[in-house]
């Protein structure tokens, strides 16, 4: 689950490993043959058999990892789709005498259909509850397979599947399986690197942020769930061809431990990790369960525990792990590291930001000065607490509109109601004349409302560059594409913006490693990069130094002026408010108290009362 940024050298190593894998996979039968020649007692066929079963396991585990590693979803139903693939081949053969290879071609369809249908149910819940829901679905499917004798053959399963003569020996069967697995891996690899894959990474890293950059989280999760079950079904179909049978235990929920443990051993953060895991697991299981049958589960448990507690990145993170270990012993030789000071704003080049192409307000048929956002009689309560009461508010296109008010005034709730994070109890929100009341966040983001959050909302394990790239991809509607390399798209545009806001040096670092101020800068950059007509900034400068704050607000002001953005922001720092806003709305206890120019607000006696002496200082 650790997405480490890989520089050019790392990439070379990675491709090297992949190439080695392909060569190794191709060479298994001849190697096994050679081994057999040298040891007449040992049959080379078993090594080939093991390699075939590892191949199928690898496909199964990598398909699981599409959900797990790329979208952060833990499913207990993946074995069920594997089983369904096997049953598809088996039952079509037994019932309709359909040749197994034709049956195999139908497995992705069966997997996709069942995956889609059950996914629609499973994805009504999130995270842990999603996992538990998949457990229920999986046991349901198992119970059906086990008990519906008339259709599935019950506990007996399906036997006597005949495969073509050409495949009846272990070597050709191995190459056939390796070929199908290879093909599936290529397809999955392309998908994971595509803008679609980028959207999944964004969801895994931060669901809320993903929504606010215009990603329909549920749809993408459903898509990847279906995709994963499709490939699991192909793996299951291969299993039926390989073992020539299918049985209900394949669907039992505990079977999911296999792909999960395999993915964990290999490393969920890397594409080929689970494949490595599959080979390690197969060899380990074969050797240990043979010679240490009685201790096997203890040893496996200990290995899983050690990996979980110490190397959660799995085998794929071992080089990194060893490097870290070495550095601990040789502290003085620690390589020079780029430390983020959290003061990127100091280096921001305002003139350049303004020039950046990517920052461009979307077209809305609203002229400057016309109402862009109209809020009518909006209310929201939490239990007995009325957070927002009958609020009316109009934001004009091109304006810089601040909302102020003491803590608990309802500012953040109001923002959440506008951006779709919360649904109002009553009232309306119109944007550019369109009713967006209660619409989901991703649609509101798409409609042209960008957002920076009060607490930092970035994609912590993605690089700074990816944070910006993915935001641009999502907002511009590219993330439905399952092909193309996401990391190569909008690279120049994102880089331009990153350099302009002073983050250039950190482009390749995981965003989560940056200092607080720098993360705020990323947050700000994301909300600007969305090309929104209206940008909501919830305390944009919280945690920044005074100098940075000034600079950030100056940046915001200039960008807004040059690019025709409309700003709606709330802020505690009165200096920022009065220095930036052209219109100020004051909220108090969930209601709008008053609205006016900064000058009018400053003189308003009611506002003065609320803020006690605070405004005097500014005045």
């Amino acid at each position, binding site marked *: 689950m650790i997405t480490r940024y890989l520089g050019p050298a790392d990439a070379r190593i990675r491709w090297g490993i992949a190439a080695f894998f392909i060569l190794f996979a191709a060479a298994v039968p001849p190697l096994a043959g050679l081994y057999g020649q040298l040891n007449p*007692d*040992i*049959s080379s*066929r*078993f090594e080939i*058999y093991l390699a075939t*079963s590892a191949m199928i396991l690898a496909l199964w585990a990598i398909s699981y990892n599409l959900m797990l590693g790329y979208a952060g979803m833990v499913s207990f139903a993946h074995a069920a789709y594997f089983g369904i693939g096997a049953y598809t081949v088996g039952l079509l053969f*037994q019932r309709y005498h359909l040749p197994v290879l034709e049956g195999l071609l139908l497995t992705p369809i069966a997997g996709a259909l069942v995956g889609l249908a059950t996914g629609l149910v499973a994805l009504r819940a999130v995270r842990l509850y999603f996992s538990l829901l998949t457990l229920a679905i999986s046991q349901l499917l198992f*119970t059906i397979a*086990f*008990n519906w*004798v*008339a259709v599935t*053959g*019950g*506990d*007996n*399963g399906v*036997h*006597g599947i005949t495969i073509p003569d050409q495949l*009846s020996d272990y070597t050709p069967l191995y190459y056939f399986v390796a070929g199908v697995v290879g093909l599936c891996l290529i397809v999955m690899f392309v998908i994971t690197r595509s803008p679609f894959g980028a959207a999944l990474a964004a969801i895994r890293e931060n669901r809320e942020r993903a929504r606010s950059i215009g990603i329909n989280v549920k749809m993408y999760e459903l898509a990847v769930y279906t995709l994963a079950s499709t490939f699991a079904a192909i793996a299951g179909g291969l299993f039926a061809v390989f*073992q*020539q*049978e299918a*049985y209900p*235990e*394949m669907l039992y929920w505990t079977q999911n431990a296999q792909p999960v443990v395999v993915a964990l051993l290999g490393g969920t953060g890397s594409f080929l990790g689970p494949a490595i895991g599959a080979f390690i697991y197969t*060899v*380990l299981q*074969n*050797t*240990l*369960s*043979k*010679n*240490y*049958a*009685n201790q096997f589960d203890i*040893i496996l448990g*200990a*290995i899983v525990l*050690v990996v979980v*507690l*110490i*190397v959660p990145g799995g085998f794929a993170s071992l080089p990194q792990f060893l490097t870290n*270990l070495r550095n601990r012993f040789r502290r003085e030789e620690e390589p020079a590291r780029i430390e983020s000071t959290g003061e990127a704003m100091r280096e921001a080049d305002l003139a350049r930001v303004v020039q950046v192409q990517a920052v461009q307000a979307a077209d809305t048929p609203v002229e400057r000065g016309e109402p862009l956002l109209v809020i009518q009689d909006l209310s929201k309560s939490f239990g007995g607490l009325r957070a927002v009461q009958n609020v009316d508010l109009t934001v004009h296109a091109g304006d810089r509109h601040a909302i102020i008010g003491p803590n608990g005034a309802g500012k953040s709730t109001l923002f959440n109601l506008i951006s779709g994070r919360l649904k109002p109890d009553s009232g309306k929100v119109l944007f550019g004349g369109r009713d967006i009341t209660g619409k989901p966040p991703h649609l509101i983001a798409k409609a042209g409302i960008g957002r920076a959050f009060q607490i930092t909302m970035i994609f912590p394990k993605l690089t700074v560059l990816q944070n910006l790239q993915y935001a641009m991809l999502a907002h511009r509607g590219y993330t439905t594409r399952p092909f193309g390399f996401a990391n190569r798209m909008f690279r120049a545009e994102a880089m331009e913006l990153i350099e302009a806001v002073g983050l250039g040096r950190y482009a390749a670092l995981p965003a989560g490693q940056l200092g607080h101020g720098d993360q705020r800068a990323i947050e700000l950059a994301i909300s600007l990069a969305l090309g929104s007509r209206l940008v909501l900034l919830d305390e944009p400068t919280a945690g920044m130094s005074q100098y940075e704050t000034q600079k950030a607000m100056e940046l915001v002001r200039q960008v807004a002026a040059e690019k025709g953005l409309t700003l709606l922001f709330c802020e505690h720092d009165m200096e920022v408010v009065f220095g930036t806003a052209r219109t100020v709305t004051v909220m108090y206890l969930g209601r709008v108290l008053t609205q006016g120019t900064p000058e009018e607000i400053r003189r308003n006696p009611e506002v003065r009362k609320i803020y006690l002496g605070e405004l005097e200082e500014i005045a």
Partner: protein
Amino acid sequence: MFRLTKLFAVATAGALLAVACGGGNNTTTSSFKGTKKVGYSGALSGQSQLYGHAISQGLKLGIDDINAKGGVNGYKLEPDIQDDTTDVAKAKDNTTQLILQDNVAVLFGPVTSAQCAATSPVAKQNKVITIAATCNSFQLTTEPDLLNPYWVSIVPNTYMEGNAAGNLVAKLGVKKIFIVSPKYLFGTSETNAFVASLKKAAPTASFTFNDPATWYVPFPTNPRWDATLTAIQGFGPDLVYSNIFAADQVNFVKQALLVNPQWFQKYPMTTLSSIDDFNALGASYPLGMHAYMRAPFFALSNSKMDDFVKRYHDKYNEYPSDWAVMDYDAIQVWAQAANKAGTFDSDKVLKQIVGHSFASLRGYSFTIRPGDQQANVGETVGTTADSAGKYPFPILKDYTNLKGDQLIMPVTLMTELQQGKCEKNGDPKTTDFANCPSWKT
């Protein structure tokens, strides 16, 4: 953290060492030409662990005896036993490993019928003989999908056992019967055979059963039988027929006795049983139970058996269960045939098995007939009674050792099954010997 890292290093090193040492331990004794492995993938853990455990011990003792007499074709036999945790996939993996990696000369069938059905094709593909002494669904040797010329059964199959139970119950003069059976291939196979043979043995009697839809207890079995016990009381049967086994039987009996210490007097029960089931409950195994058993040593006493029981008890401090007896027989069958054939070649060894007779620990010789390659082994039926301190579990009194020839499936029926003539509307899922033309007449 640092300490943990060290721990990890040690653990990894340990694991690697374990892998490295895994390879060869070829202990060839000088008096033999070499060693030959015989393979068994059995349930050493999981639901049927009780049986797998006994089978391994029976096999090991059999192997020791054979080696003491000079082995097979001058080779020393070495047991190669793998735990399959009563799991189908694991049994299949183990069997493949035994065949392809360990080059075993012969295999012994796993415990459950589903495991046997799953492992049979691998053995068939690689031409390795399997001698089945535990799993016994007749489908394994008659269903066209499963036919395997290298499969030999020396356990009374479900047809024979159902037949034995049916004939036993027909004589009891009962009318109302409650059936409890596990929802596996074995359970349905044996229950169907029981009901069919009961009706055939008492054609004039009219029986009342509980609803057939409630005969089977679905998987995964719940350890609580309260609902079934209440249902039995509600039904008020003259007899309960069951073929639940292992943990299920232990739980059923325990809970029934808690409901009523006189339960089995009130609701007499005809059930499949074994020394292992006796052993698990010991003295609390109910008396007066109509049990049918595959090879209870005390009912089949003869000099060979007595000697075997003594040596088995000396070695393992346990009495040999039916499974231990039958698997001891199984290894003897193969060893004798292989010695006679003078080779380990499966086809040639098979020629010395099929159609030949073998002396059994059970005190008689059995013959493995062609066709389904099933041995005409017998079944013991009787009533459980106190062993008067002789054993830590009950024995059978008034028992009969039914002859295999009385029980075995008629050749015509077997042939019809194998030729797929017993399916309703050509649907392979409806195969049942009750659908066979010769059964109907």
